[in-house]
């Protein structure tokens, strides 16, 4: 049975064997990539369940809340309450702020009672985020809808060409899901090492990055907190690192950011230099 596991996380559980092959670009270090960076100047969209702006772990970094309203045939993006349906969007936001304390967070709520056509709401929210020029988007959901495949494909390309990094949680199902499995997307699965800065690069796509996603202390609904496991808690760790890189090196393309992440990843065979700091100064 274990042969059939759709285990996107598996390479990250055994990095010594699975992640040996990886490119190292000379001169690319974490210090160069994000040393001194705070995320300042970078806006990160969180396409999720909304965000609780006044949650203490968000430190007031949420600058805008919107949602998708579907009335008739035309889905439109409208201002939203500063609230979170489930707690999940808040959890993702707090992880990102924890890594990049000066980012600006934009909440794009695409989950909720009034959003039955979820795929459409999701696509509309994503399109809005790209058109707003947000540099990073964190996606915890993906769609299996065949009819939306071309829509998401087009949006993933549009994001790539405009320089929006789409960071998506991989879905642990043995079937296509979009846009998380498109090649331009930063697809992320969980590893179990309790370190928000520990990053793996997987040279065997579709899932290219591994970040902390097991027993992660997270912010939750109503100002609360809990401990959670899932790929959707790994993705915002990568979104946070991407925000740091873009705040230090504005204008890099998603392709360039991926190359940097791959190069500074903790894959075996490239020890972190002694005494080097992960955290920005």
């Amino acid at each position, binding site marked *: 049975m274990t042969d059939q596991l759709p*285990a996107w996380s598996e390479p990250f559980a055994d990095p010594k064997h699975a992640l040996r092959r990886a490119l190292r670009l000379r001169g690319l270090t974490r210090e160069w990539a994000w040393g001194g960076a705070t995320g300042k100047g970078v806006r990160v969209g969180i396409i999720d369940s909304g965000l609780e702006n006044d949650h203490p772990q968000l430190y007031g970094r949420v600058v805008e809340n919107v949602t998708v309203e579907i009335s008739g045939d035309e889905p439109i993006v409208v201002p939203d309450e500063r609230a979170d349906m489930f707690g999940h969007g808040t959890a993702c936001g707090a992880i990102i702020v924890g890594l990049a304390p000066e980012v600006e967070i934009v909440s794009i709520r695409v989950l909720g009672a009034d959003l*039955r056509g979820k795929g459409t709401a999701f696509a509309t929210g994503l399109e809005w985020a790209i058109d707003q020029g947000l540099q990073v988007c964190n996606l*915890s959901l*993906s769609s299996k809808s065949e009819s939306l495949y071309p829509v998401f494909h087009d949006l993933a390309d549009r994001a790539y060409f405009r320089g929006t990094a789409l960071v998506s949680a991989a879905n642990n199902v043995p079937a296509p899901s979009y846009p998380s499995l498109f090649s331009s997307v930063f697809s992320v699965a969980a590893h179990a090492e309790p370190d928000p800065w520990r990053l793996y690069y997987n040279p065997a796509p579709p899932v290219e990055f591994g970040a902390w996603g097991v027993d992660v202390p997270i912010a939750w609904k109503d100002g609360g907190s809990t*401990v*959670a496991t899932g790929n959707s808690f790994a993705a915002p760790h990568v979104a946070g690192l991407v925000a740091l890189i873009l705040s230090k090196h504005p204008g890099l393309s998603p392709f360039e950011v991926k190359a940097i992440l791959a190069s500074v990843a903790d894959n075996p065979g490239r020890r972190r230099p002694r005494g080097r700091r992960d955290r920005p100064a």
Partner: protein
Amino acid sequence: MANQQTEAALAALVAAARRSAIGRRLQGDIETRLLQSIVDATVRLFDAEAASIALFELDPDRLEFRVAAGEQGAGAVGLTVPPTQGIAGFVYSTGQALSLSDVANDPRFNRDAAEQTGYVPRSIAAAPLLDEQGTVGVLQVLDKRGSPTFSLRDMELLAVFAAQATVAIGATRVQRDTERLLRTVLARVGPDLDESQLDELVAAATTNLDVDDEAPFWRLVDQVARLRSLTDRETALLTDILDVVAAHAERARRSRAGR
């Protein structure tokens, strides 16, 4: 002409709905039994206090707990929760598996869970039941006895069980959702139909399907459904009887034709 076409189309719809209803009747509660076996296995494998499966139902939108297993599972069966709330709701809405490991610290979760099922879990893991179209439900496990949290391996195994459950549901869903099936087909062949026209057509095709349980045809269907529990000997006996009846019918037909 247009009228004739409409009538023929409606007749075809009625036939489709009738076939689907027969299928549902013949299958009985096979879906529930399959799902039950999956939660039984889940509880045993995880050594958990409870496991349950909730399926999405329409009008009103809800997640309905269909089966449960484990010492603390019984309270969940029949429970419904809005798909916009809680861990099951999130997993349903996003298709993302997740686990929370100190839910008892969340006072709101605590109270809701206790009121509804009589059991307050410490940890919970949930995986979506995903078919080709999207999420159809959620598989949940509460409180692994040997560990306060769920590991990555646990989450992956849970996904495998969820996939099994989805296959079980897929096999019977077409029968279960005659109306949804008709609606989907109609909306696709007639994109100009508005909601009320769709409602009308679906109603026309499905009315009278199940009203008269005592009608000879449905009695026959029910009898056939009961044959599942026959032993081999009884099946052989029944086959012999049917052979005799069929031979008799054939003779009668020939003599009628010869006349």
